[in-house]
């Protein structure tokens, strides 16, 4: 049987863990609120870009533009966004499962699939499954504009030169505090991205006007490239934002559960400690009494 001293030692250790998990929960709550405000503010920007993008992809003048054509190089790529840190439940496992669908699909169709990932927890999981990423990005929790520009330019150039058929981002999409799901957002071909974004947008394009009614400055072919860069940049940014929000929600839930479990354990150990201490006192009293009786 464990003595009261050991129980006390164990209770103190669990109390330290409880404090740690509670702090982590609070940190995630604060960060969640910060990113949530940014997410809400950026929504309108993404919607506005999607509406303008929709106007352009319906233009008959742009049918032959390299950004709107489908390539057939046999090479696809996915960017997988895992969690930045650990202790967030099954977050990375869900992302891996979503990635597995693409890996299997590429294997069955005989296409080459390259995986790109930020230097995060997911890389360890990929190594465990013997998957070597084509490139690991070194970036902050929320990538800077320059870091996103680098990714945008890299894949846009590859797509326009016909070296890439498809680019997708596997990430945890944030719907609300109660709902986050792993999803793939197709970034390229651009038509698929705009189609997806306009479906998500809260306000769709006012149908009374068509692309022929507009005056473009510079020409529509020149505009599409700049707009594509902006749309792709904002889509990648929004995927990272969703991933961070989902990660913090996952961590908040995991840490809340851990804190509650620790509190329950502390309660049980306190009761056990009191019982053990009482029985020790009783035992010592009995020893004293029996000793005194023996002397008499």
């Amino acid at each position: 049987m464990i003595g009261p001293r050991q129980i006390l030692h164990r209770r103190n250790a669990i109390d330290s863990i409880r404090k740690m998990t509670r702090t982590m929960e609070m940190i995630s709550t604060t960060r969640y609120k910060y990113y949530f405000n940014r997410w809400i503010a950026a929504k309108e920007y993404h919607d506005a870009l999607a509406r303008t993008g929709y106007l352009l992809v319906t233009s008959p003048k742009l049918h032959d533009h390299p950004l709107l054509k489908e390539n057939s190089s046999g090479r696809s790529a996915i960017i997988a966004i895992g969690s930045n840190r650990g202790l967030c439940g099954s977050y990375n496992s869900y992302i891996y499962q979503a990635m597995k669908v693409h890996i299997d699909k590429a294997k069955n169709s005989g296409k080459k699939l390259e995986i790109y990932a930020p230097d995060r927890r997911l890389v360890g999981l990929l190594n465990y499954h013997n998957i070597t990423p084509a490139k690991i990005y070194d970036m902050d929790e929320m990538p800077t504009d320059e870091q996103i520009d680098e990714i945008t330019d890299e894949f846009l150039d590859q797509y326009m030169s016909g070296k890439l058929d498809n680019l997708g981002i596997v990430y945890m999409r944030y719907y609300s505090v109660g709902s986050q799901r792993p999803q793939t957002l197709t970034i390229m071909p651009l038509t698929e991205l705009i189609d997806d974004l306009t479906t998500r947008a809260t306000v769709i394009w006012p149908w009374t006007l068509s692309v022929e009614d507009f005056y473009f400055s510079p020409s529509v072919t020149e505009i599409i490239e700049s707009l594509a860069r902006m749309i792709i940049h904002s889509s990648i940014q929004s995927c990272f934002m969703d991933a961070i929000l989902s990660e913090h929600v996952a961590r908040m839930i995991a840490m809340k559960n851990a804190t509650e479990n620790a509190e329950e354990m502390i309660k049980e150990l306190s009761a056990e400690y009191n019982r053990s201490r009482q029985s020790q006192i009783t035992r010592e009293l009995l020893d004293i009494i029996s000793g005194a009786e023996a002397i008499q």
Partner: protein
Amino acid sequence: MSAPDEKFQCVVIAPRGKLLKCDTVSVVFPAHDGQVGVWRNHMPMLCKLGLGIMSVEDVPSESELEPKHTFLLIDGGFAQVSNNLLTVIAQDAICFKDMESEKIEKLLEIETNKLAHGVYTPPQRKHEEQKLSFLMKLAEMTAAVKKE
């Protein structure tokens, strides 16, 4: 001065959110190839933006003799005009609604520090220098408004 019934709507959206939504009588924005003016009933247009100062003239009230303006520093993006609605989707924008001189001075300081210590390619440096010159222009305009 334009009549109040000649108004249209102007919305400026940046990655950080909606910066401006108001009724206006005239807007001048920095397009990729120079300044573009927009009045009511402008034809539908999609225009690429450059770096510069955007000026939005408020709808005049009877008590005001001089029209009020809202200034924004725009850095890239698109302007879209349709159905008497001007939507500016800016890559980066700063709104100076009440011409706060402190805000401009703080931005001037940040921009000067960035230029002094940042590592830039020649085109990036040129861009940052242009941005700084526009901020200085805004600071001058603020000082002029305050004197009046």
